[in-house]
Structure formats: C-alpha cells, structure tokens
C-alpha cells in the first residue's frame, strides 16, 4: 500500500547508500511498493545522496549533442559542474518529463519534474526508474562498486552465491529453486550491488527485482560466482579469472561514456574474480541444480 504524503522528506537506503529527498510542498509523493522495505526510519539524517525535488512548468533539452544518449528514456549532458539527465518518453510527448542534475561526486542533486507530464491526482516517486539506477550506477563508478544483472542469495551455511545472467538466462527461475530450500536468504532476483568492505566482497539486495519479486535490503558476503547457462543437464565449470571478469562486465551496469567508470569497473571486476571463484553453471531447472552449486563450492 502506498503512503501518500505532502511536502515531506523521503529517505531510502540501497546498497549501503542512503538517498534523502526533500520534495516540494505541493507534491504528493509516495514510495513504490518495491522500495518500502528500503525506507530509512531516521529520514532527517544527512544522506549519501541529498536530492531536492521540485516542479517546472516546462522542460527542454539543451541545444547541443548529449554526452550520451541511451537510445531510449534518458540522455546525459556532462560538464565541469556536474551531469544533467533528461528523461523523455514518446508516451508523454516530445518534451522531457523529468530532468536531474548531479554534482561531480554524485552526492547532491536536483530533480525537476515537468508538471504537465504528471497527472495531478497521482502520487509520485521522484526516483522512479531509471533515475534511481542511474544515480546508483554513476556513484558506484566513482570507486564504490558495481551493479550487476544477477540473482544473489545467502545459503543456509552463510555462503553467498551470485548468479549472473542477461534477461531470460534463468535468474528468477533459479531464485524459485532456492526459495524452496530451507534457510536460504535471497537478496534480489535481478539486480545486485557489489561492494568491497574490509577486504571482503559483499552482495547487496536492491528494490529492482525480476519475475520472482525478490527485493531485500540485506547483504551477504560473496563466496562464489556463477554464470547462468541453460542446458539439458546440471554441471559447473571453473572459469579463468579474466574470462570471469569479462563475462561479469558484460552483465554490469556501467556509465559507458565515462572512461574513469569503465576503468574502475574493469579493475574492480578483475580483483573480484581473482579472489572469488567464478564458474559457468550449466543447469536445468530442477533441485539438482542447487546441489550442483553447493558441490562446486565445497
């Protein structure tokens, strides 16, 4: 159920980062249901991301080439004072429905919503996709970690397993296999944030779930990485670390237009795959696939 408030402070915590939002007084805001378990109780504390949200009576993209165009919803315009994102959708007309500016460190931002694009009676989640993931992706690329297209979980014995895959690879199917196991804590069946703390790599759950609907605010230490590959049998095969890093990069969310982001992410993934074993998991969706994973990491 959505809680509707006005002129209020919203704060959520994702991947070890807190997002604090001060919203315009005449703006009806609400969390998406997926974000409710990520809500911060102490909303007034200073957050890692401090965002002001306001209305505009109109928005227009700059009259120059963007630094990057996604080919879809968003374009980025970077300059020395920060990065500005514009969001457009054919469904709501040619004008941007939202713009967001961030400082170079992605610690402060200002989100402006085009009043004409939002029905008056609807409540708004200012970080609505894809802005939430874009902000996270850019902050992580500044030396903080990486978000990957993956299922993450902690097994009964505390071992943390990461299952990487593009759309359709079987992340949600694999999640359902593990849900049937007692004592398993699932973090997300679609998006996992990887970070390093005190010489260990950690998986963080996110609100950005897949078909299995797994969205947990918890984290687990990473013990092994599996690249999902559907097959008529179950088998694991250890990969060379560089191959594992390359396959992870292909399933990572990275600001591809920023050299420093690419460079950091490649280095981060290289470090992970040199310290955490990386396997191909050829699997068929049966409980034996779970045992193949446990056997691979004995």
């Amino acid at each position, binding site marked *: 159920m959505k809680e509707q408030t006005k002129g209020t402070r919203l704060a959520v915590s994702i991947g070890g980062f807190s997002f604090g939002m001060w919203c315009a007084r005449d703006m009806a805001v609400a969390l998406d249901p*997926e974000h409710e378990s990520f809500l911060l109780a102490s909303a007034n504390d200073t957050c890692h991301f401090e965002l002001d949200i306001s209305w505009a009576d109109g928005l227009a993209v700059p009259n120059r080439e963007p630094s990057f165009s996604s080919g879809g*919803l*968003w374009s980025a315009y970077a300059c020395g004072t920060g990065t500005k994102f514009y969001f457009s959708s054919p*469904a709501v007309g040619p004008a941007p429905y939202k713009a967001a500016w961030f400082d170079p460190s992605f610690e402060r931002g200002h989100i402006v919503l085009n009043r004409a694009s939002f029905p008056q009676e609807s409540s708004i989640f200012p970080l609505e996709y894809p802005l939430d993931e874009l902000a996270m992706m850019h902050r992580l690329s500044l030396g903080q970690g990486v978000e990957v297209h993956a299922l993450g979980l902690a097994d009964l014995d505390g071992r943390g397993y990461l299952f990487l895959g593009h*759309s359709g690879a079987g992340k949600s199917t694999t999640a359902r296999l593990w849900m049937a196991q007692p004592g398993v804590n699932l973090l997300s069946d679609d998006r996992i944030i990887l970070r390093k703390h005190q010489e260990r790599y950690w998986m963080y759950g996110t609100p950005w779930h897949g078909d299995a609907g797994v969205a947990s605010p918890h984290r687990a230490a990473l013990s092994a990485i599996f690249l999902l590959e559907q097959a008529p049998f179950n088998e*694991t095969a250890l990969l060379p670390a560089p191959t594992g890093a*390359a396959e992870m990069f292909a399933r990572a969310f990275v600001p591809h237009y920023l050299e420093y982001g690419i460079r950091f992410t490649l280095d981060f993934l290289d470090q992970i795959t040199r310290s955490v074993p990386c396997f191909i998991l050829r699997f068929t969706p049966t409980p034996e696939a779970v045992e193949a994973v446990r056997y691979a990491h004995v």
Partner: protein
Amino acid sequence: MKDESKPESKGKPAYRPPQVVRVSLRPEEAVLGHCKVAGVTGPISGSCRTLFCKTFGS
C-alpha cells in the same frame, strides 16, 4: 566439476598464447534505456509505472 581455467595435461602447463574472448553484451539492457514493455514507461499512469518497474530487465 570441470576446471576450464587450467590446461588438461599434467606437469608444466603448455604455453598458450593470449586469446581474445568475445562476450555477449546486450546494449539495450546495459544502458537502462528501455522498458521491456515498449512505450509504457514514464509518468503515464499509476498502473503503468508499477508495470514497467516489474517487467524491466528480468
């Protein structure tokens, strides 16, 4: 469990020249550009916003 990280032969491993390994990248997923349900993202309606959040990238 197979080990595809090491050569098959015993003893000193044979020299293997560096290889270029191509990996499959899906740009449309990697850049967070689109909803999987084409044309229904953005501030269209409450139900639509809920829908795209549940369908993208799974």
